[in-house]
């Protein structure tokens, strides 16, 4: 079944015709060519595909594109305020070497931003580690990801994002 779908992605209105079975991540990657959001598993475990839908982090591999009809979607491509300035979470990931191969990184960053906001910019190490339950990384051993998120929380607060 082919369905028309329209949503806002990173502030831009987009639309397309998709099969009902098209996942949100397929719509982003294959229809919009936005390949920053990754697919690392088929069982909704790895979190490489995390994006924000109406301000909440979700696994875009476990949501149909048609379910995002009318929604505001933010992906990793939409975070940086300008070409030469990164979001504080992106900056913290870079400063703390919180990424190696980069494949899990988009999902990690999107989950991390949601985490910081849900906890009102107040996080401790145990909370960060628990909140990363839905994101797998095989390179970093998580050590520097945790460090980066703890560093980003106050930076996001002072930047007002």
């Amino acid at each position, binding site marked *: 079944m082919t369905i028309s779908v329209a949503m806002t992605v990173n502030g831009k209105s987009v639309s397309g015709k998709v099969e009902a079975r098209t996942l949100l991540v397929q719509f982003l990657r294959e229809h919009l060519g936005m390949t920053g959001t990754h697919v690392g598993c088929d069982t909704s475990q790895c979190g490489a595909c995390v994006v924000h839908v109406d301000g909440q982090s979700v696994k875009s591999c476990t949501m149909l594109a048609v379910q995002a009809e009318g929604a505001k979607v933010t992906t990793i491509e939409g975070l940086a305020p300008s070409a030469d300035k990164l979001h504080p979470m992106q900056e913290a990931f870079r400063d703390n070497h919180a990424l190696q191969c980069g494949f899990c990184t988009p999902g990690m960053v999107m989950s991390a931003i949601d985490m910081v906001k849900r906890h009102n910019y107040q996080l401790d190490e145990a909370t960060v580690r628990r909140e990363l339950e839905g994101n797998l990384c095989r390179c970093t051993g998580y050590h520097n990801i*945790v460090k980066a998120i703890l560093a980003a929380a106050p930076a996001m607060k002072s930047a007002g994002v």
Partner: protein
Amino acid sequence: MTSATGIGARVVRTEDKRFLTGTGRYVDDLPLARATYAYFLRSPHAHAKIKSIDISAAEKSPGVVNIFTGKDLVDAKVGGLICGWVVKDKNGEPHKSPPHPVMAVDTVRYVGDTVAMVVANSYDEAKDAAEAIRVDYEVLPAIVDLAKAFDKGAPQVHAEAPGNLIYDWEIGVKADVDAAFAKAAHVTKMDIVNNRLIPNAMEPRAAAAEYDKGTGNYTLWSTSQNPHVLRLILSAFVLGIPEHKLRVIAPDVGGGFGSKIFCYADETMVCWAASRVGRPIKWTAERTESFQTDCHGRDHVTHAELALDKDGKFLALKVETIANMGAYLSTFSTAVPTYLYATLLAGQYTTPLIYANVKAAVTHTAPVDAYRGAGRPEATFVIETIVSKAAAELKMDPAELRRKNFIPAEAFPYQTPVALQYDSGNYPPIIDEAMRIADYAGFEARRAEAKSRGKLRGIGFSSYIEACGLAPSQVIGQLGGGVGQWESAQIKFNPTGNVQVITGSHSHGQGHETTFAQLVHDRLGVPMDQIEVVHGDTSTTTFGMGTYGSRSLAVGGSAIMKATDKIIAKGKKIAAHLMEADVADVVFENGTFKVAGTDKAVPLAQAVFAAYVPHNYPLAEIEPGMDENAFYDPANFVYPAGTQICEVEIDPETGIVEVIAHTAVDDFGNIINPMIVEGQVHGGIVQGVGQALFEGAVYDKNTGQLLSGSFMDYTMPRADNFPSFKLGYKVTPCPHNPLGVKGCGEAGAIAAPAAVMNAVHNALAPIGVKHVEMPATPLNVWQSIQGAQRAAAE
């Protein structure tokens, strides 16, 4: 020179911006016009005869472009996949080498074996069509239990490997070792299973290919750690496409850990089919396929014995191992449990006599090959668990027993009884530093405090050595390896002074774009933002052996240093000409050529410009241009070493093991970028702890189905399984490479399993538990506790 961005500086990574903004380019991200999509039909059985394959209904399925089966490859005379390392049996015979067809022809030998390739206009359509293929299988009994692979009557995997035996290999003189055991005051014995692991790089394997009918050129994009080696194998052995007509590109690759070294069936098929389909083909593994078809790691069953004299000095070590090869011999599989394993069995110790016998078995399971550490974690696990067990039996402190047997600093270079000559090291200060960081002295107080909370606390050591920086080509040749193991580098200046550093190494997370730029910046004074590190494309790179075995910096970085030497040498001649000075008087300092004792100076950029615009240039003596190539072949392996200390708490009611603290002190020689090195250690530790506590590939022993076939069943380490780690360094520079560096990529994973399991055993010893196998899952630990309680009651 030293600077904020030179050697030794914590430089943030150049490559991060693209990964952080979603602009990295992995294979699946490629936009290929008119692409088709491949789906592979895989065997649902561990062992079966293929009686027939009927594709007629599938061919009519919507969107189908082509369907290929093993018979098509036979008709096209496509070769089989190869194992590139010949290991000689103890009788001097080369290992058994059963054929490895790219796609199964008449027999499938593991769940996931490739049966057919469907190419369609979309991935979903290809998958829809694959369901319509009718394969008539005659299911046969399968052997998946390694310990029973050599049993009489066990199902046979290949007619070419009678008794499922690939080789029966040995190192050392058994009679000498037996004689030493006869005189021993104490013998410690252990039976160990080194659990089978599934690599699970976060990016699933993927391939894409296109064929240019006009030129006859193929381009293959692959998630490869070594694109040149992949091209060489495909050209010379499998597809017969001449090397110069096949371009292999490994763009951004999302982690490898060994699993992306090898030449696989699916990428081979994608490449081969591209010319037949006439349109580009894309394929990306689903995670389930990764579980079933990525080469697995480890999987040993071992019996080990250590002989000690009355003072605790090691007299001899005897090791018998059965290693699982899986259903087919993967690219480097034969070398892993022999030359990368048994040659490491001296560890950090002066054990004078070592004998190891390794039998490699084929089973109806996915192929097994190198996985982070490859052989060395298995060796370290044998040595470090048996040493700790010996200490416990002798009621000695495990650190003390280690110290008593360490190779002393003055003994380097040190010839071990198992072929390797360790170039450098100083082990006692490492363990001292690890014990200081881990507060070993305060452990018993912490154990008592944990006991008051009902928890069992334990501490464990692992003092590892590894041989990495693969490898001296002549040694590899003598050992049966089929390729050289040098690395290439090219330093190509542009007229405006910026530079491309072209390396045959491949980065799939290791940060080469930063570390290698730091080398060139440090050596030539070119600003970091004027340096571009290029890798991963056979068309733009001279040649390369790729990245594995912690070799990139020690071998690839050394090649870059050689190339900078050539740049400086040529620059001196140009500068001498420009300054009207004698070349012998020209020195190169901080990016500038100078004549000692004068104020004459030519910045490197000026010499480069002169080389490309040679209006005032010694054309009779030197060629224009500033573009130098170097190949570096190391004189020896490098030998990083270190000690890890793990502290765990076990909940005896549930069996849950919690890692409370984990310390690693390493000697990686000189360090170029400490930030990146720490990241490698963190990741390695988690993979090592993962092996010890969480991960295990489990096949149903009867059906051969992979029971741990998804993240729902295979326990991946997650953030909340760990504390933050404590790291430290000691430095003995490598004496034989120009950077003085050793490797750091595998160390964490090599050392951690033994540290964790020694801690687990230490925690459980007071309640009578003698042995827990990896992974020490809650179930496994609980069952071990139950067993000990039953034994105590009897």
